[in-house]
């Protein structure tokens, strides 16, 4: 048991730092990979399978916003007003997302319908 636990702790302390998940208001100063959670604002422009989808994310409860550019699969539930999480890096004021990391936050499986 002790050995198992040791392996586990070792791993989680080295590699298991995980991804900090932040709100737009607390994003400033983070240069590493983070997961950004927020509410999608209108307008959503561009092409997720081309030059990139552009939109702004706002704190779910708050006013701070940040522009996001995203490429890759867009989940079915994505649209303005929804809460999403996307992983990426902050690059000179724009949050550049890692392709394919956009997920909508309402756990679609168990919380049907949130409008």
């Amino acid at each position, binding site marked *: 048991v002790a050995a198992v636990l040791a*392996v586990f702790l070792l791993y989680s302390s080295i590699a298991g730092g995980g*991804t900090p998940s932040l709100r737009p208001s607390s994003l400033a100063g983070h240069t590493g990979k983070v997961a950004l959670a927020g509410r999608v604002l209108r307008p959503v422009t561009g*092409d997720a399978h081309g030059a990139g989808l552009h939109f702004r994310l706002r704190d779910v409860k708050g006013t701070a916003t940040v522009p996001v550019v995203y490429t890759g*699969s867009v989940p079915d539930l994505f649209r303005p007003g929804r809460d999403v999480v996307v992983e990426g890096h902050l690059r000179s004021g724009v949050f550049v997302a890692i392709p394919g990391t956009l997920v909508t936050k309402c756990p679609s499986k168990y919380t*049907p319908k949130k409008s």
Partner: protein
Amino acid sequence: VPELGRAALVVCFGLALYAVVAGFAGAYLRRRRLALSAQNALVAAFVAAAVSVGVLLAALVRSDFSFTYVSSFTSRELPLSYKLTALWGGQEGSLLLWLLVLTGYGAAAVLLDRRAGRELVAWVVPVLGIVAVFFSLLVVFVASPFKTHVAPADGVGLNSSLQSPYMQAHPPMLYLGYVGLTVPFAFAMGALLSGRTDERWIVATRRWTLLAWAFLGIGQLLGAKWAYEEVGWGGYYAWDPVENAALMPWLAATAFLHSVMVQERKGMLKVWNMLLVTLAFSLSLFGTFLTRSGVLNSIHSFTEGSIGPWFLGFICFVVAGSLTLVFRRLPLLRSKTKLESLASREATFLYNNLLLVALCLTILWGVTFPILSEAVRGESVTVGRPYYDFFLRAFGLPLLLLMGIGPLIAWRRASLRSLGRTFLWPFVAAVVAGAGLIAAGAGSSIPGLVAYTFSAFVAATIALEFIRGTQARRALSGEPVVRAFGSLVARNRRRYGGYIVHAAILMLAIGVAGSSAYNTSRSARLAPGQSLKVRDYTLVYRGLNSTRSENAVETRATIDVYRGGSRIATMHPGKNSYPVEQQVSNEVSIRSDLLTGEDLFLITEQVNRNGTIDFKALINPLVNLLWAAGLVFLIGSAVALWPDAREERRLAVRYGHLPQEV
């Protein structure tokens, strides 16, 4: 009418409370009639819960939108079957279902398991009562499914992605599993309270645990199948917290099912079994809590949720209460025997248990990490797929290997010689399979290769067990092969049912390894007439067409699939858009090759104005083994569960018929 439902729940609450008070008093004072009346209260509570479920179902069927619950989860045009299954579509209904299943299980268990001894059952009743009190408290005071409001013209409706037969069956299966774990837990606590800490509680609850565990397993596979077909990202398991919520109690219950065999046989691991059953039950509560409390979004939204703190409090109470009990009964839980050798059946069971529990706890750590880090550092940190995949390999692969070793190795102590004799052929099979796979190019993924080599080993041991057993049977009875095989399984249902389940897990492992380690994915933007090559498939995009259905605009691409120069299929991946709900849903197209178990999985990711589509194609090898494994799992569980008169007689001899101590 909502009053009737509400009243029935209040009655249910009262009866559960009575079952607790009268049950404890009856058991403590050894008043048989009081204990019996507590038992009857539990049965009556089931009836009351059934009445209130009936009321809610009737309201759902009649689309009585004055029920807040009905208007929140159904609409007029929703098909009847979905109206009915909306019973577990929302939080309040799910809790009500929990209560119904709980009281049902509880009533059945105390009525059917009288053999466990009156004194034990007398203590089990109040424990079941406590759990029932908690859930009826929730539906009476905190999250009532019978809230009413001024009836709107139409209800909100059901999320389109939940309108799937898999989603109709998945939640009740999970609940039957989660709640079923209450029974072994209650018997374990009953055993501690009564001081009857022999194997009786385990014997009495073996089938209940198995049943709950089988439901949990099947429920998860249904969920995976749903995710695969409906969510449309090409996979079936994403280590999502709500998925993990069901996996953790299943792992704990798997460990428990194995370790009780050691206790039955050797009288060892008594404390460990008590802890495991507590872990399994707490995790099933935790699973309900995770999926229902909103804690996953953020610890902040959790404190706003109404049922979250209640659940957390109850989980703490359960853990603290059972640990205290175990601690106070420690002198009674001493092992009769000691572990003699690290190479023995007992030791293998122990390794299996440690690995299962370690896997379970690392998942728990991963699930709670965002919550813990937010509470501690004010910044929520999530762990992702790499974390879980790492531990699945680190603990899962050795587990796979143990599945081959465990059933064959001798009890007590295995000599080197007997080990060589037993494992010669499986070892040869593994080496041959490994060499063959490397030649076939499976070396591209080391974990995949290891998984397959181990699988060959396990498959060989299972086959060997069946062959040896059948031969022995033939030698004994002179029956023809098929008859001998049949009677072998029939006479040792538990053992061979177990092997069949092992075979199912093996198929699952092969399917998971195949579809995760050897899958291929390509995506491209295609104009009509253009094609995309994915491995040996050529996909030609022919065009788009849209049709209007009752409540959606259905856009479908036409894709011709060629392999080896000839057209083998035409597929139609597309999107539905629902104007009323303002929602789109991916409608993927899947072509299963039943011969190889491989899926061609097509997704239309984006439809562009100029008629081009952004298109993704995945090849998932062996993924169909997963669903086949579900069937084998079901068969194996059924064999192990099937009542066995011979076993009953054996047990009756061992434990005496009805102890007359009360």
